[in-house]
């Protein structure tokens, strides 16, 4: 199973607040926070083929372009699943996650989800009915490992066991 990750520059290990204007970048394979997620992906036989990212400052200034290009790149790479997150309680990045997941689901045949903490209530209220948003703790919160397992459970079900998706979404998503 091929997975594509969409990060912000902080999670990508390219500097977050210290480097907010990183332009759209694509890297082959796993980088940054992806290393933390890799063991969980391996458990469901998923391989991260690439990581796309940009700085949150760049996203704020070029919102439409970022969403369009992320979607186009996902279409070009054609993975089985696109994970937009983990957004933690980072407000702008979580919005980017929701918008990218929504655009990918609407404009491609690729499955996708966003992942963020409950602190992003505005984004969750607006998009939870349109896209799967996996629950997770805020930065420094409790339950990060469980939330990564829940993410992988959803990915595995969406790709391999569609009959289980609804139950898993009810449990693991907002």
């Amino acid at each position, binding site marked *: 199973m091929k997975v594509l990750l969409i990060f912000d520059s902080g*999670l990508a290990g390219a*500097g977050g607040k210290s480097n907010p204007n990183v332009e759209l970048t694509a890297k082959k394979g796993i980088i940054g926070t992806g290393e933390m997620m890799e*063991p969980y992906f391996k458990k469901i036989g998923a391989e991260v083929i690439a990581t796309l990212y940009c700085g949150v400052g760049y996203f704020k200034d070029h919102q439409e372009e970022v969403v369009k290009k992320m979607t186009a790149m996902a279409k070009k790479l054609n993975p089985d699943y696109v994970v937009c997150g983990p957004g933690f309680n980072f407000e702008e990045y979580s919005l980017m996650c929701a918008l990218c997941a929504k655009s990918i689901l609407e404009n491609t045949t690729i499955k996708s989800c966003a992942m963020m903490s409950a602190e992003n209530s505005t984004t969750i209220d607006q998009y939870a009915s349109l896209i799967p948003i996996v629950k997770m703790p805020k930065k420094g919160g*409790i339950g990060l490992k469980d939330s990564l397992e829940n993410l992988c459970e959803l990915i595995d079900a969406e790709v391999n066991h569609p009959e289980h998706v609804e139950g898993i979404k009810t449990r693991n998503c907002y």
Partner: protein
Amino acid sequence: MFDKLEKYLSPVADALSKNKILSAIRDGFLITVPIVIVGSIFLLISNFPITGWSEMVASVFGEGWETYLDAVTSSTFDVVALTGVLSIGYCYAREKGVDKIAGGVVALTCFLIITPKTHIAYVNEAGKAFSGFSFGNLGTSGMFLSMITAILSVSIFAWAMRKKLVIKLPDGVPPAVMDSFAALIPAAFAMVTFFLVNIIFTNTAYGSAHAFIYEVLQAPLVGLGRSNLFEVIYQFLSTLFWFFGINGPAVTNTIFSPIHKVLTQENYEAAKAGIAMTNVFTSAFSDFFCNYGGGGSTLGLVILMAFTGKSNRIKTLGRLSLPAAIFGINEPIIFGLPIVLNPLMAVPFIFVPVLNTITATIATSIGILPITAGVQLPWTTPILFSGWLVTGSFVASLFQLAQLAMDMAIYFPFLKMLDRKYLEEEAITANESDELDDLSFDDLVLE
């Protein structure tokens, strides 16, 4: 092993973080931190660690110039129990979902009710005993009582509110008036309770609730804070939680922060009284001699990443993270390297702060590292400056440098392993040739 450990740690972290009482105490003291830091600046100016400083300033502003600065220092340090009870009361009212500022004010009033107001040991020339509140009760010695009072009084206040024991005014009365009347009976319940508490304690051998709580609770608990294991356990647990992505200090401070605070304050009071400071494990010791560059003492790691990293990822991340790391912020590497849930980095990340603590404790006990004064600086104060300012000695800055070198030596082999792994991945990526090689957003066709 990590899975098993997390199974035990997560419920503990969850219970501590969600405990409304502990969270209110932690957050309440956090509210007072900026005030104490500003007070510390005044304290630092009046006791600047330069020989002949006092005389030099006196030659410009005249003798007794410190008195003006002491007015600010004293109004922050000497009344920590007073500001504490107000802010803890406020935070606990927030946790209980009742009027926050009313909760804070009720807590403050209840604390003053049980605070002694006549001091027969202090008599003036006319033979009249001092009448009023004394710093002895409003400062360090009253800190644990301030916590207990805030929690108890707001509990009573919130209980009465929940039971709807309130005066209801007709519709159309302005909300501010409505709120103040709504708080009247709940406030009365709390104040009457503390009126009785005061009578009870006044008639015991202790003489006051202050003396009772100090002797029975504060002194023994703070005594634990003086044991050599206190800081080691704090540092170990704080970084262990971080490894699982949990903000360690946010959990551990619910228990350790009040003790750190009292130990720090006691040093301030000792210095003020002209006696030797004896407490090693102050907030400043914890912030400036156990951790450099954030949790896990990662400043040394970031320096190594920036200047010895071979893989592009480590080199780039190190250089980008260095400015923030100097000011104690390591978020970019916590999630970017990453350190969270990364077993390879677990050993140095967890044990470097512990080793720093042990070496700093030994250095203090043999007299190399001076005991930290009561000064409380922002935890973002950079290495070298922080050591000098909190001890008044350049030796402390040199000691920080030595610790940084030790941290780097411990992190080095682990970083090299990670660097080698990333380097190999980068080499494989460079040698492999597939459609993912030339990933670029520039030539995308947008529909």
